[in-house]
Every structure is written in structure tokens, then in C-alpha cells.
């Protein structure tokens, strides 16, 4: 399986990116990570921000590869799972992000107060780690996109 196959299945669309788009996405990642560390708001909101940072970091890698997800049910999950092909991410990281994705949906749409302290801390740690990994990967593999 690879990104080309996913495009054939209709999950992705080929679309070139630009240094500005990558810089904008990395800006969202930084903003959401900063928000996730604001202790004055609820754990739920902070968790949402941390998850959004991680998902946007994954999206930056996907855009750098020249693809974007097609808006349909589960496209956030596809962005996360694309890490396997963009950055050869560890399956354990993807599994953890899948769990976070479900929790993010549950906390946004089903029930308040279902994020524990450990889960919030872990989500921030994972998002920060992914931000650093994606940034280093972009500098190494797509330096032309980091010159905005």
C-alpha cells in the first residue's frame, strides 16, 4: 500500500503544495500546542488542541508529499494513518493517535470530562514529538518547502 494507491481508492487527491502552505500548517501546529498547555481551560479543550496539533503535523507531511485527503467520513483518521507512508511512522504511534482521534470525537460530540490527566499529558507529548519529527523530516526531505 502507498499514497498512490490511496489516491486510486479516492481517499486522497493529488495537489501540489507550497512553502507558504507548509509554513501556515506548522503555524497551526505551534498555536494548538501552545493552547494545549493553557492550564486555565478544560482538559477536554486542551486535549482537542493537542490532537489537532498532531493531526495538522501529519497533514503537513502529507501535503509535502503532494496529496491531500478527500473530505469524507473518516478523513481525519486517514490523515493520521498516512504517516505510515509519508514518514514511515511507527505503528504504535499511529495506534495511539487513532485512540486519541476517537477520544477527541467523543469529547467533542458525546460527553464532557472524559479526558484524564495522563491522557492529556500524553497527547501533548505525542503532538510535540510529532511536530519535531515532521519539522526535521521536512528540512531533510523537502528543504525547498521550508524556505518561506
Amino acid at each position, binding site marked *: 500500500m502507498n499514497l498512490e494507491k490511496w489516491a486510486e481508492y479516492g481517499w486522497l487527491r493529488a495537489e501540489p503544495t507550497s512553502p507558504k502552505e507548509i509554513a501556515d500548517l506548522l503555524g497551526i501546529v505551534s498555536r494548538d500546542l501552545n493552547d494545549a498547555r493553557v492550564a486555565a481551560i478544560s482538559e477536554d479543550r486542551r486535549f482537542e488542541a493537542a490532537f489537532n496539533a498532531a493531526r495538522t503535523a501529519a497533514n503537513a507531511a502529507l501535503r509535502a508529499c503532494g496529496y491531500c485527503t478527500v473530505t469524507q467520513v473518516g478523513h481525519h483518521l486517514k490523515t493520521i494513518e498516512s504517516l505510515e507512508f509519508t514518514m514511515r511512522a511507527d505503528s*504504535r504511534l499511529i*495506534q*495511539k493517535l*487513532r*485512540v486519541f482521534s*476517537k*477520544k477527541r470525537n*467523543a469529547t467533542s460530540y458525546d*460527553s*464532557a*470530562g*472524559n479526558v*484524564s*490527566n*495522563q*491522557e492529556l499529558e*500524553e497527547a501533548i507529548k505525542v503532538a510535540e514529538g510529532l511536530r519535531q519529527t515532521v519539522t526535521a523530516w521536512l528540512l531533510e526531505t523537502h528543504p525547498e518547502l521550508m524556505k518561506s
Partner: protein
Amino acid sequence: MRAYAKSMDDLIFGQTRGRVLALLYGHPDRTFYIRQVSRHIGTSVGTVQRELVTLYRFGLVIRSVSGRQVYYQANRAHPVFVELHSLIAKTVGVFHLLGSALAPLANRLTWAFVYGSMARRDEKAGSDVDLMIVGDVTLDEVLAKLASVERAIGRAINPTLYTANEFRTRLESGNHFLRSVLRGEKVLLVGDPDELGKMG
């Protein structure tokens, strides 16, 4: 969209038979005597005995005698063993799989239980397994234990982790999510049911 049966194991096996099969087929390498099965699934000895005799007559379980005790075991040699084993794992067997997977962490867990649609037995084909873990374990440790269970049951497992302290504190502060979880159906995998009951 097509409506699926509310409880697949009840539909196919009947509640008691499903539980007996889940226990035996969930541990196909173990033998069980009748009282053991009865205690495990919370059904009378007489009812369990009738089910085991029926399953034995159809060859789905084998029996052996040691001293005065009769033991029953899943019949791996039966032509439908593989399919039945998989079917049970995807319905009631999930609880046994989860309990076994979490067993190595059990001494650091206060409670582990399934809640939501799986616990209510009204899961749909695409339902996830909602799992509450209360104890001193990390998400990485839990996910490592659950990966093989997810593969075996073909369902995603959504763990929520609390320390015992945080669980208690949040309940005391009226956390809506935890209160509704405790009010709803639960299938306890690890921990003292009476102590958990007091938390609600």
C-alpha cells in the same frame, strides 16, 4: 442501513450457551469442571450441566474424567472449531480476551471494565470496545497489551485511563462522564465489584 441483531451471541447461541461457549472457547487449552463454569458465568449448576451435555452430544466440547471430577474442554478437532472460536471471540469472547490481555498488569490495576454498547450487549457491527482502566499504568503499556486483542476481535478498543486518585476525585466533583459510565452497564474484567459499586 441494515439493522443488526441487538446481541449476536444471544441470537445465535442463547445467553447461557453463549457464555459457556465463550468461556470454553475463550480458553481452548484449559479444562473446566461444571461448578467452575457455573461460578464463572454466574448461572446455576443444573443449567450449566444441561448446556454442557448438549454441547458434548454435538461434539463441540470434549469431556474427560479424573477421579470423581468430570472436565469439559473446547473440541479443537471439531470441523467448525476455527469458525466458532472466531465467532465467539467477536461477540462475548472479547471479555475473556481483554481480561487475559490485562492480567499481567492486574496487580497495578484497581479496576478495568468494559462499558458502553459492548457491555450493554447492543453492539453493532462497527461498534468499538469502550474500556475503562483505573490504576497505575501508562497508555503505552495498555496499548501494547490491547493490540493483539484488537486484531483478534476485529474491533477498535478505546481505553480511558485514570489513576485511582483521579477517578475518585473526579467522581466526587460530579464528573458527568464518569457518573454516567458508572450508572450504565459494565463488565468488570479486573477488580472488586463491590468496591466499584460503592463508587457509583
